[in-house]
């Protein structure tokens, strides 16, 4: 599919776990904090390899964020790990004051983001976290799409000085980004060249966007697929450039359409050149229990939805 091959299903959280160990073996200042979810966050290898640099905080996320902020004083680079819901909404004020407003070099690493956490239901899923984090001045927001990209992002953020929200997930999904692809914060990646419709996608929806483009190609429609892994700062150039060519755009993300990547793009379009746009995302709803694949389908986060929105936006051109 456009030169991309599924190298085998894997979870993005494992990409984080592997990346964390790799970057920590090179940089002694990296420390990791976890709020009683070491296994779920795939932080066990880090804990075993660097026991002195691993901090088990217990079920106390507010304290974890504060401790992480404090540890930056003395040049540590803390990576905090818990579910996305408990990494953001639960500790918003701690992140806002002790991390973002205080300009602290904390990496907030959040697994089980979106709806694909599955059976645990809406208390543990979160579809608002991108919005919460991107609103904080100075916060970098990254949502990688597969194992390889998550691993690369985990390593790359250590080189950036400042607060970062790194969002990844639980299910095993196709791993297709080339292993050695360079990860650049704030730089989108054109995965497929096309000239009729632009599909901007992030996270788990990227593979589905490729499938959609493949389907459309067979129908004679050339879609351009752009992977935006960094939601903030947004790579405006790559999106506007594509839009000049295609004249319409679909954004696909595993997030509430309110506050998500799509909203950032809509704002970009309004400020530059108006073009029809459609959103693939959750429509201002909480999730529910179920198998990840069933939930993705029910909430319109599927290849079929992307294709449908592409047809719709093409008609509006």
């Amino acid at each position, binding site marked *: 599919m456009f030169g991309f091959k599924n190298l085998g299903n894997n979870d993005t959280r494992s990409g984080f776990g592997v990346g964390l160990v790799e970057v920590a073996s090179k940089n002694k200042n990296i*420390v990791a904090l976890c709020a009683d979810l070491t296994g779920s966050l795939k932080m066990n290898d880090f804990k075993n390899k660097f026991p*002195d*640099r691993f*901090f088990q*905080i*217990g079920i*106390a996320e*507010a*304290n*974890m*964020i*504060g*401790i*992480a*902020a*404090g*540890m*930056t*004083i*003395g*040049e*540590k680079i*803390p990576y905090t790990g818990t579910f996305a819901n408990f990494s953001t909404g639960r500790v918003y*004020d*701690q992140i*806002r*004051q*002790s991390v973002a*407003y*205080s*300009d*602290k070099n904390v990496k907030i690493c959040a697994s089980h983001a979106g709806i694909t956490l599955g059976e645990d239901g809406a208390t543990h899923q979160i579809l608002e976290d991108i919005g919460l984090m991107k609103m904080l001045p100075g916060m970098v927001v990254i949502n990688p799409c597969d194992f390889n990209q998550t691993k690369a992002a985990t390593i790359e953020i250590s080189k950036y000085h400042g607060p970062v929200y790194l969002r990844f997930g639980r299910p095993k999904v196709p791993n297709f980004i080339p292993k050695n692809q360079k990860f650049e914060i704030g730089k989108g990646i054109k995965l497929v060249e096309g000239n009729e419709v632009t599909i901007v996608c992030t996270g788990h929806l990227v593979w589905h966007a490729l499938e959609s483009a493949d389907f459309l190609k067979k129908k004679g429609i050339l879609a351009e697929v752009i992977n935006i892994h960094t939601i903030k700062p947004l790579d405006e150039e790559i999106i506007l450039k594509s839009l000049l060519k295609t004249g319409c755009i679909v954004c696909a993300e595993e997030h509430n359409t309110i506050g998500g990547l799509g909203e950032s793009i809509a704002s970009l379009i309004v400020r530059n050149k108006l073009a029809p746009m459609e959103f693939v995302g959750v429509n201002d709803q909480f999730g529910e229990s179920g198998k990840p694949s069933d939930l993705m389908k029910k909430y319109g986060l599927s290849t079929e939805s992307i294709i449908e929105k592409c047809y719709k936006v093409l008609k509006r051109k």
Partner: protein
Amino acid sequence: MTSIQKLVFQVRRDIVRMVHANNSGHPGGSLGCTEFFVVLFFDIMKRKKEFNMNGYDEDLFFLSNGHISPVFYSVLARAGYFPIKELSTFRKINSRLQGHPTTHEGLPGVRIASGSLGQGLSVAIGAALSKKLNDDKNIVYSLHGDGELQEGQNWEAIMYAAANKVDNLICTIDNNNKQIDGDLKDVLDLGNIESKFQSFGWFTINLDDGNNLDEVRKAIQTAKENCFNGKPVVIIMKTIMGNGVNYMMGSHKWHGVAPNDEELEIALNQNPETLNDY
């Protein structure tokens, strides 16, 4: 008059003048903690002349109850972190001296933003852990309001520090028994603060008169002697809100209210200019 006593008078003057100049700010808690700040910064802490965010090889201080920024700013300025005349910019537009302390404007001496209550102890613990990782044997100090202990994050932090033997940390509670809505016991009674800390596993020190310079010095010295002993240390410091300005003393009404012109004059008359006013 000793240089420390002189500083106390001058810091009190700074506090009431700063708050008066804007008709905003928090004089009550600031005045109550003046002796503590002066002793800590001028008698106790190992400090480097040049401010460095990472604070290697020196003691660190974190203010959790950020609303008492007037005393913090005055002491930082008098300790040489920034020009004393900058105190005149307090709470004004384009100032580094925000209503509540922040690192965001680059004010030397401040290492964390505070104001939204209950976050400072976690931060201080983090800095103390960082010191341990860096094999830096200096001490991390923090100050908190007693009403602030109503915030749950404190108890997460108190539990963590004891369980993990964060023993390079001296946390002081400003126990003036007052908060915005009135007496602590009427708003939300904290019960026995000392026994709570003890039951969590802290080494506790009672400071019965936190407005007495010798008592403050003695309490912090005792706290220092008990560091690196497997337990975090807390000083429960009884103070009088508004101390040093007679009409403010002991009343929660002066938590966040500025004196008017006449009240300022009275306050200044009670606190002679010992060093130069800003």
